[in-house]
């Protein structure tokens, strides 16, 4: 039965190639545009560390002086000072914790044909690797003892390992960073969380840090800090702020394995703030936040406004395309009132006619959907040519592929419902008579 309807639909569509072409084109364009933008939105608002992100928390405290403080309204600072970072790190109240900041180091290898170059770097304490679940291709991270000892050890990314060591196991080799010798202890495997949640002061997407060294050693060598520095009072920057300066420039991350622990940690932050206020370091009443990864990304509006705007625009376009298709489909079905009248007169039920017409719109939707999929692939290719930092991430994943096809089919069946229903209302006698 459905095979027969399919055959009928195909014949009918072939009889009006231009109209059919218009409908397919409209659906394909609408689906293509909306799936392109939806995929970009999906990629950009994704979870950077699935399975881990709900146990990772970003503590925020407020060490500023009382100037401009509105209790209950002022958000605490988005990074921590050196002193607070070190205090929280040494308190060890979380399951894991790491203090870190971003930078950029010159790499110059002895006896190498490679010209010196700069690489984005992360200066961090040891828990960074186990806390974020960083996979290693060779070797491993360093331990807390190495932080204590200001050890000159480094972990490098696979692309940097390929560039400097030709992809071989480089653990134990020496890499010259900012003019000082560091021993490679590990090479990271395929790991590139997007968004770059743990430090949103650099590129939010597709940030590719190549070098990780202990925070303590980075300060000994005088490696440059890069990212945001926010000072208050009479604090003044310079690239790497003085460790006593009233400036925040470090990120502190914690792992808290249960909600109870998170609540306890929040309480600890309040206590810490009160204690610092009693000591005279803080002037504000405790102003703390403890956001997990997704809350932190949300708070920072990481997904660019332009991407949301484009998605809205594309769905507006899809709506116009659908209205257009409904109109054309209706025109097409109504034109066949005579034929439908004959079929009704010969005994076909309304249901049968309805099913037949829906089949026809379904076929249009399917072809349009496939066309839309191709257009979405082309659209994503175009997005990757764009200058935005997230451009390289725009790829279709299986979930979005399925969504595309479902959206296309759903949209066109939906678009076929009204015309099919209208066309089924024909009165057989009237149609036969008028001809």
């Amino acid at each position: 039965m459905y095979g027969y309807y399919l055959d009928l639909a195909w014949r009918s569509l072939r009889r009006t190639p231009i109209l059919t072409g218009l409908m397919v084109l409209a659906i394909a364009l609408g689906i293509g545009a909306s799936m392109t933008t939806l995929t970009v939105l999906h990629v950009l608002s994704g979870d950077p560390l699935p399975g881990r992100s709900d146990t990772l928390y970003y503590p925020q405290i407020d060490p500023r002086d009382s100037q401009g403080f509105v209790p209950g309204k002022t958000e605490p600072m988005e990074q921590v000072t050196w002193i607070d970072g070190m205090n929280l790190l040494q308190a060890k109240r979380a399951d894991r914790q790491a203090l870190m900041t971003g930078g950029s180091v010159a790499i110059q290898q002895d006896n190498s044909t490679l010209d010196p170059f700069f690489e984005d770097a992360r200066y961090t304490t040891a828990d960074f690797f186990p806390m974020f679940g960083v996979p290693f291709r060779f070797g491993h991270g360093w331990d807390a003892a190495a932080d204590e000892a200001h050890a000159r050890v480094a972990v490098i990314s696979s692309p940097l390992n390929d560039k400097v060591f030709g992809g071989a196991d480089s653990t134990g080799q020496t890499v010259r960073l900012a003019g000082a010798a560091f021993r490679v202890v590990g090479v990271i495997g395929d790991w590139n969380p997007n968004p770059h949640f743990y430090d949103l002061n650099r590129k939010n997407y597709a940030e590719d840090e190549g070098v990780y060294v202990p925070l303590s050693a980075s300060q000994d060598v005088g490696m440059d800090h890069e990212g945001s520095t926010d000072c208050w009072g009479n604090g003044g920057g310079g690239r790497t702020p003085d460790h006593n300066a009233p400036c925040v420039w470090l990120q502190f991350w914690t792992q808290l394995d249960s909600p109870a622990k998170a609540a306890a940690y929040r309480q600890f932050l309040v206590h810490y703030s009160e204690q610092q206020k009693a000591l005279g370091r803080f002037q504000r009443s405790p102003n703390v936040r403890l956001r997990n990864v997704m809350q932190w990304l949300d708070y920072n509006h990481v997904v660019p406004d332009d991407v949301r705007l484009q998605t809205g625009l594309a769905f507006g376009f899809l709506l116009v395309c659908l209205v257009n298709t409904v109109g054309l489909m209706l025109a097409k079905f109504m034109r066949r009132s005579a034929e439908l009248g004959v079929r009704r007169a010969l005994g076909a039920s309304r249901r049968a006619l309805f099913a037949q017409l829906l089949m026809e719109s379904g076929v249009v939707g399917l072809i349009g959907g496939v066309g839309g999929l191709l257009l979405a692939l082309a659209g994503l290719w175009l997005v990757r040519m764009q200058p935005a930092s997230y451009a390289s991430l725009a790829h279709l994943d299986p979930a979005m592929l399925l969504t595309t096809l479902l959206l296309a089919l759903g949209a066109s069946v939906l678009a076929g419902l009204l015309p099919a229903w209208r066309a089924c209302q024909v009165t057989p006698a009237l149609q036969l008579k008028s001809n």
Partner: protein
Amino acid sequence: MDIRPILSTLQRHKVTAALLILEVALTCAIVCNAVFLIGQRLQRVNLPSGVAEHELVQVQLGHIGPVPDAKAQTATDLAALREIPGVRHVTPVFQLPLNPGGSSNFGVMLAPDQQQPTVIATQYMGGSELVTTLGLRLVAGRDFQADEYVDLDTALAALHRGDLKGLPQTVIVTRALAERLWPGETALGKTMYLGKAIPFRVVGVVASLARPDQLEKGEQYSTIWPIRLSAADGASYVLRCAAPDRAGVLKAAVARLKQLNPNRVVLVQRTYDEGRRAFFANDRAMAGILVGVIAALLVVTALGIVGLASFWVGQRRRTIGVRRALGATRGDILRYFQTENFLLATFGIALGMLLAYGINLFLMSHYELPRLPAIYFPTGALALWLLGQLAVLGPALRAANVPPVVATRSV
């Protein structure tokens, strides 16, 4: 032309007519807002920077390891760069207007005990030739004098000691900032405060100098400070030369700097114009996407009108034939379909205006956009009327060519 018969015909095609009206309305609403967004982007892209844009090149170097003799190195670099043929002025800078690379900003206060800053301004500093190198135009007061300059490290050390004497005492502001801080008064001699009541006296006002980024905080709220930077501070060298010499000067400057001290890496080498283009690349891309969407929308809507009109013409062939046989001219038939389309478009446009206004309100609350200017409404209406008439012309002409004899034939 009498529109009553047209309306009564449309009454019998309520659903189809409603769909067409809806399509025109949606298109009208989206196109109005998209054109408005394009205008906003282009306005951003064309913002004045205040500097001699086509005469500047920038070189930024990264040092491998600490730089022990940074000040001497900077002095040597600057002297060598000045000797390059074609170079008129050279200065180190931290930041350039409307260029990528971050910015340094601070809260400006008008009284020593003020709690919330009046504005967040940006901070330009470099060296004694900053104003001349960038080609800024002083409209009041003067440039800094030699004895007003302080080295950055000296200033930071003084700041940490709490010694206000070791800090620079004077500042140059833009006209826009002066106007914001002291409306209707002269800014010269006025004092503004930073941090914990550190005073700075305004000695000069420049016509225009945009900030590097964060334009939403006031695109022209910039200040210039008498602070000297050295090679270790992460500054760039900016050279001013005649526009046609830029490529040559850039190449010569990079070669000379590498020769002076090979132990450093060139991080940035570009003309000011290239930096500015990179800064606005996203806005340009977005404007391009919006143009594409508008074109696609108009094409889809036009094709939709063509499709429906063709269908109606086909359906009414007999009626048209009868009308022709009863004496209607080709022009009458043509005008009938044109008027019908005009009516549908008008309904669509009226609905579209409301929608456009609604979408604009939504965008205003979510994306910090201004209100849609009223001029967009008549322009949008005109555009869609025109689109409708163009789209219906083909089918209407075909209708006009239906011969009267059709009336006598049975289909």
